[in-house]
């Protein structure tokens, strides 16, 4: 026994090392990426702020032909420590085509050393110095290409990290581009957050391992270990704050930690985090005293091989699913407005469940959407099962030739990625050019505007989803049909049973064990069939064909970023699905039980 155990420990360590290095590499990549991105967006924001502050005064100075005023404004702007350059360019005909860029003149520059001559009276603005010209051409070129009034853009890849931003100012005399070039900022990263979580986990792992290895009174050591780790976290935070304190426009580490949800006001949240750490630190020895820690440790020790195998995936699931899930539930109690989250208690849920002041026939009403969703799900499942079953029964015929060919061709819709299917059918339901309307035209019907009425729009969705979904049911049924012994039918034939009798008494009952799970799964798929609804009808008309999941999406990403309300929606959807699966689990068990 001794030898395998030793070897197994090595195996466990190997697994751990592999998993840890994989996660480590991944985290490292993510962190580097995140660092760049945070820096860049922060710089863009600063550039935008400086521009916004500058545009108004510069414009009014230009209107009153106060060129000296423009110049002093730009000089003042360029003196800020986060701005390296502020320029005003003029162009008589601002166009998106490049040749016109040659006519761009530098009107004023924040840095007097760059020596751009300001306009005086009818005098032409100074031409650009050749050394500087190319750079400004490129710079303004990107302004013009993006064709928007408010512009911002990034430096080309490989260039020094330097954020440039421009803004177009239109005057009766012509058009100007106001540009601000921002120095890269040192931005705080959320790295300490990751570090902190990592330390906490280590802090937990150390005492637990400790417990697992040796006997009683180790809980003191556990507590001490955790306290040590909490202290280390504190040092990290303090060190981080000291580092960040030198950078302009940054938040403290503690604030970063707590702004995750509160979205702004530091203070309240810090207490929570430290309170939790303290509680953990104090709580563990208490647990140890009560023997809970000991029992957990014993269980872990006893099953440590199993644990070692399960931990990588379990950690993955905790980080990727359970944490977002918990955050989602918490988010449901917050309201999101312009980047800030504010605690509103149950308001989102009551808002949704009461319909938020809308009547039940209003497309935005939860109960209306729920009704549409249920209708959508049941109709689709019925169609999928009946078409799938029908085709499977036809294909089952032993004398039928070319079965394989039909089968291969008929599962094609399942093979096509469903977003392509959805877009394809969206095109086919196009009012003017769509294939469906053209086909109707062949039979002498008028063109239907599919997405302007509820029922036609709903039909379009259902048709698409039926096309996409029946092959799965057909394949499942075919598989199950093959496992029904042929002699049952022969016996029934001998007894003189009719075809219908055979179908309802032999085929259907024997199909049930395979069909029930397929139907349960199919219903969940359809209930959540985001792509079809979102891409085919897009909820048209007026959001009435939206199902719950697309409605939640709309609240989050289309209607004013109401993350809180959308999260509450998602929680409700989860509860519905959970109730459904608990219910069907019983049904499935019942179906299994009948034939065991």
């Amino acid at each position, binding site marked *: 026994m001794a030898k395998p155990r*030793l*070897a*197994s420990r090595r*195996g*466990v360590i190997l*697994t751990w090392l*592999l*998993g840890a290095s994989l996660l480590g590499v991944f985290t490292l990549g*993510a962190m580097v*990426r*995140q660092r760049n*991105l945070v820096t860049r967006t922060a710089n863009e924001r600063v550039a935008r702020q400086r521009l916004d502050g500058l545009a108004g005064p510069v414009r009014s100075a230009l209107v009153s032909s106060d060129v000296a005023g423009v110049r002093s404004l730009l000089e003042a702007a360029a003196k800020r420590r986060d701005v390296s350059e502020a320029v005003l360019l003029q162009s008589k005909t601002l166009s998106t085509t490049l040749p016109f860029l040659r006519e761009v003149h530098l009107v004023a520059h924040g840095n007097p050393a760059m020596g751009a001559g300001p306009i005086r009276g009818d005098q032409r603005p100074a031409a650009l110095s050749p050394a500087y010209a190319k750079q400004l051409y490129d710079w303004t070129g990107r302004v013009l290409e993006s064709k928007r009034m408010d512009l911002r853009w990034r430096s080309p890849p490989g260039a020094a990290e330097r954020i440039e931003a421009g803004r177009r100012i239109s005057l009766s005399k012509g058009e100007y581009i106001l540009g601000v070039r921002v120095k890269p900022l040192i931005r705080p990263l959320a790295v300490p957050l990751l570090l902190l979580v990592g330390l906490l986990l280590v802090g937990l792992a150390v005492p637990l391992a400790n417990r697992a290895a040796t006997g009683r009174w180790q809980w003191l050591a556990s507590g001490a270990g955790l306290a040590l780790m909490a202290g280390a976290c504190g040092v990290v935070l303090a060190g981080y704050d000291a580092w960040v304190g030198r950078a302009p426009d940054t938040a403290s580490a503690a604030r970063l930690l707590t702004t995750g949800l509160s979205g702004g006001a530091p203070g309240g949240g810090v207490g929570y985090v430290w309170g939790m750490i303290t509680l953990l630190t104090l709580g563990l020895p208490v647990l140890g005293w009560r023997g809970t820690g000991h029992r957990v440790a014993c269980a872990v020790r006893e099953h440590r*091989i199993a644990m070692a*195998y*399960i931990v*990588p*995936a379990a950690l*993955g*699931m905790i980080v*990727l*699913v359970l*944490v*977002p899930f918990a*955050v*989602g539930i918490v*988010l449901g109690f917050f309201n999101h407005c312009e980047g800030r989250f504010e605690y509103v208690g149950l308001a989102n849920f009551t808002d949704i469940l009461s319909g938020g002041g809308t009547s039940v026939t209003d497309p935005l009403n939860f109960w209306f959407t729920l009704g549409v969703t249920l209708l959508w799900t049941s109709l689709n499942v019925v169609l999928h099962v009946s078409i799938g079953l029908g*085709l499977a029964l036809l294909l089952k015929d032993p004398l039928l030739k070319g079965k394989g060919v039909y089968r291969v*061709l008929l599962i*094609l819709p399942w*093979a096509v*990625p469903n*977003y392509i299917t959805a*877009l394809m059918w*969206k*095109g*086919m339901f196009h009012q003017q*050019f*769509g294939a469906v309307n*053209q086909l109707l035209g062949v039979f002498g019907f008028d063109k239907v505007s599919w997405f302007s009425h509820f029922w036609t729009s709903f039909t379009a969705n259902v048709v698409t989803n039926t096309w996409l979904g029946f092959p799965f049911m057909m*394949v*499942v049924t075919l598989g199950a049909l093959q496992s029904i012994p042929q002699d049952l039918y022969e016996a029934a034939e001998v007894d003189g049973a009719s075809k219908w009798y055979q179908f309802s008494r032999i085929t259907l009952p024997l199909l049930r064990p395979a069909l029930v799970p*397929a139907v349960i*799964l199919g219903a969940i798929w359809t209930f*959540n069939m*985001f*792509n079809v609804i979102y*891409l085919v009808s897009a909820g048209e008309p007026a959001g009435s064909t939206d199902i719950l*999941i697309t409605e*939640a*999406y709309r609240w989050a*990403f289309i209607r004013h970023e109401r993350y809180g309300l*959308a999260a509450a929606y998602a929680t409700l*959807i*989860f509860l519905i*699905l*959970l109730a459904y*699966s608990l219910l069907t*689990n019983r049904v*499935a068990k019942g179906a*299994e039980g009948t034939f065991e």
Partner: protein
Amino acid sequence: MIGRRSRVRSVVIHAVLITVTVVTLFPVALVVRKSLSPGNDFRLSLNPIPEKATTQHYETVLEARDFSGRWLFGRQLWNSFVVALLTTILGVFLASTAAYAFSRFRFPGRRFGMMIFLVVQMFPATLIMIPLYVILDKLGLLDSVAGLVLVYSTTAIPFCVFMLKGYFDTIPRDLEEAAWIDGASRFGMFWRVVLPLSKPALAVTALFSFMTAWNEYILAETFLNNEASYTLPVMLKHYVGDKSADWGAFAAGAILVSVPVMGLFYILQKALVSGLTAGGVKG
């Protein structure tokens, strides 16, 4: 008499099946036709062979560049590939050990753990999309391959666990016991006996995770907002936007993007059916 009845019967069956097949294949034929014929609208023609064949749409898709001259199709293909590959590696790696534990060990929390995996597998990632979005936003991982891989792993890991557990259950324990007697360690049994025996299942699982990640649209659409970081499905959707629609380019792109994975699907679909239904029943 019987011969004649069965002939009539088979003619009827063939007629029904041919009709259904034609209806089924019609939209696909339209897309193929569109990809080869000039013009941008999605017109109907009952003739599936294009009157005037052109490869212009394929060229449009393959040669798309953004305004700073970056080769979009290449980048998007690379993005799709890297995201799908990393998701697969992460999923299969994390899942294989977990599936082995679920299959071979009895430990407290086993049932609960499996239930969690099952529930997560059934519920779509779209449900936790909002918190994921908020979290990734705070971490600065929006618009990145890493962020998308993390999101896709939420569905890939439980799926892989179930597929692999189902397969590990079918491998007789005698083999491991024999290895044990020959002096293999626990890990050795897993690494040298079980994993090599499950190569086909590992391959199928990996290919399925790859395919799922490759075909995913809405999460990518939500989490990516820079043309050069799009994956292929997002690129395709943007060919047929609300304001301007280039159905020709869409059709050509759809064929380029989906034909390889459709081929894969045909090879794998039997394994998928058994995996899905088995996972559903056994829990």
